[in-house]
């Protein structure tokens, strides 16, 4: 067993009473990675030397000067830049890229005293739902190594589920934190758009991307979001809205809370086990004094199509910066500048990234702009209105995070449309900009299922309150994969 079975509160107790040191905790992360990552394949780069040196320094800081996350190890998704630590977005086009500054969230982790142990694999440029689109390795699901961990923050979820680190950061453009959190049985929060600075997050779809925390329990998640949230002068889309003390909302009291269950979330394509786990969760929440009523989000079925057009359009623009000139991969032997661009990008990007760049370029082209891009933006308005309407009368929306548990590696790789369908339950929240959390709520054939709670803009606090109350009444989050045994 590992020290990371413990919550951050328990780890802090160990540090305060002298049972543990920060150096020990940091070493534990690298030992776990050594033991398990041959199977799980979560990490792309390790920060061992620097992390251990930092830990030794931090052990000297008096305990009264430490916050709740001080000295705790964390893994960071590889699309978040870390000064002096290779950052690739799991793409050949950024292989060897050494960032020259820290993302705002990385700076905030440092301010909170967290120790960054390494960079986590992902689908290339966060485009994918399985981590099979990484140019470097396919991360495995710790619950069953023949299954995917989800994506695109698959390794962020897998590393936490495997107990390699107790915390990680991911990013979520259409479900990329929540779907892997569900597949790997951990807690994952996509905050409100603008809640967390995107400065230093390599952009995929700028109007949808958000960084968020993945952890083994709700309290740790709340602590980590509080540490990374807030307005940032380097990101003009970050919101100047006060960040509450989320942990203080965790009192288990949800009496009188009004929960909406959209009938579309339990409809066609959603597996029986996923449905049943949500219905069971609803009974738990009712038992705690919440009321649950069925509602409709009538435009839900259009979210997937609107999302692929909008996110790909934004990506086609954002990824134009990868041209082989100032950083990253550069093709050899190009005769002129145009050939250099074309060869570099053809050799540097994987197929899924190329597909989306082309779909986006096509959607934005003269002649198709109105029919695709503008139409999708109008549909986005309708989807957002669906959520505004429901939130006039309810505090929280509930549903499954994904239609099924994690699928087998290789099962969906040849068919982009089937792969995209894994995200039908997570995409609308990015289009509407609302916060949503996934928490463990059951198992099917030994693979975890996720419960999704969706909140009003900037009301992550209520989501944490409900998630915590549910977590206290159930034991899904306490279970660990079989690969923990004897390791």
């Amino acid at each position, binding site marked *: 067993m590992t020290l990371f079975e413990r919550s951050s509160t328990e780890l802090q107790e160990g540090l305060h009473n002298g049972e543990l040191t920060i150096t020990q905790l940091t070493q534990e992360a690298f030992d776990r990675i050594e033991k398990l990552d041959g199977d799980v394949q979560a990490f792309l780069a390790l920060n061992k030397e620097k992390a251990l040196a930092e830990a030794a320094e931090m052990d000297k800081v008096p305990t009264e000067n430490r916050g709740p996350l001080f000295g705790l190890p964390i893994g960071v998704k590889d699309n978040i830049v870390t000064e002096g630590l290779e950052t690739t977005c799991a793409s050949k086009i950024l292989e060897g890229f050494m960032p020259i500054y820290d993302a705002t969230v990385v700076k905030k982790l440092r301010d909170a005293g967290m120790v960054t142990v390494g960079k986590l694999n992902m689908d290339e440029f966060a485009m994918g739902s399985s981590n099979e689109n990484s140019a470097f390795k396919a991360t495995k699901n710790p619950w069953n190594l023949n299954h995917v961990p989800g994506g695109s923050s698959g390794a962020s979820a897998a590393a936490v589920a495997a107990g390699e680190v107790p915390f990680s950061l991911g990013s979520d453009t259409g479900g990329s934190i929540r779907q892997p959190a569900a597949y790997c049985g951990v807690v994952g929060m996509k905050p409100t758009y603008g809640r967390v600075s995107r400065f230093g997050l390599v952009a995929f779809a700028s109007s949808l991307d958000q960084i968020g925390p993945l952890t083994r329990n709700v309290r740790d998640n709340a602590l980590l979001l509080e540490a990374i949230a807030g307005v940032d002068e380097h990101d003009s889309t970050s919101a100047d809205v006060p960040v509450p003390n989320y942990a203080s909302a965790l009192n288990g009291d949800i009496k009188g809370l009004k929960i909406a269950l959209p009938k579309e979330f339990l409809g066609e394509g959603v597996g029986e086990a996923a449905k049943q786990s949500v219905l069971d969760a609803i009974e738990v929440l009712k038992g705690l004094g919440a009321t649950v009523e069925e509602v409709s989000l009538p435009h839900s079925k259009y979210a997937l199509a609107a999302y692929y057009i909008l996110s790909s359009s934004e990506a086609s623009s954002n990824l134009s910066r990868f041209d082989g000139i100032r950083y990253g991969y550069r093709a050899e032997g190009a005769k002129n500048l145009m050939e250099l661009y074309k060869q570099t990008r053809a050799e540097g990007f994987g197929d899924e990234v190329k597909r989306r760049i082309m779909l986006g370029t096509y959607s934005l082209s003269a002649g198709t702009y109105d029919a695709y891009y503008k139409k999708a933006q109008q*549909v986005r308005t309708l989807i957002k209105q669906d959520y505004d309407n429901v939130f006039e009368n309810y505090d929280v929306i509930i549903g499954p995070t994904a239609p099924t548990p994690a699928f087998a590696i290789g099962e969906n790789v040849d068919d982009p449309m089937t792969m995209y369908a894994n995200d039908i339950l997570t995409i609308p929240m990015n289009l509407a900009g609302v916060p949503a959390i996934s928490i463990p709520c059951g198992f099917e054939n030994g693979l975890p299922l996720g419960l999704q709670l969706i909140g009003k803009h900037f009301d992550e606090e209520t989501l944490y309150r409900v998630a915590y109350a549910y977590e206290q009444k159930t034991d899904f989050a306490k279970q660990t994969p079989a690969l923990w045994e004897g390791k």
Partner: protein
Amino acid sequence: MAKLSTEEVKHVAHLARLAITDAEAEKFAEQLGKITDFAEQLNELDTTNVEPTSHVFPIVNVMREDVAGEGLDREKMMLNVKEQEAGQVKVPSILE
């Protein structure tokens, strides 16, 4: 909005600055065709007079004081440049 032809795919690839082989153009034409077919369902919705949403919050022109701040260090910026000469980025010829 019919299926994409391989010629259209090659044109889009050129706009996106992606070199593409004939075989790839055929493969992408089929895959992109499936995605655009799927996107046709958006036409079931009447969006007359619906304002497009490019961004969920109505943020416009976030300004700061016009005061010079510290920029990135030039030498650091050159660290990731593959080919350089005299502190400048080197590229192949632009004019034939």
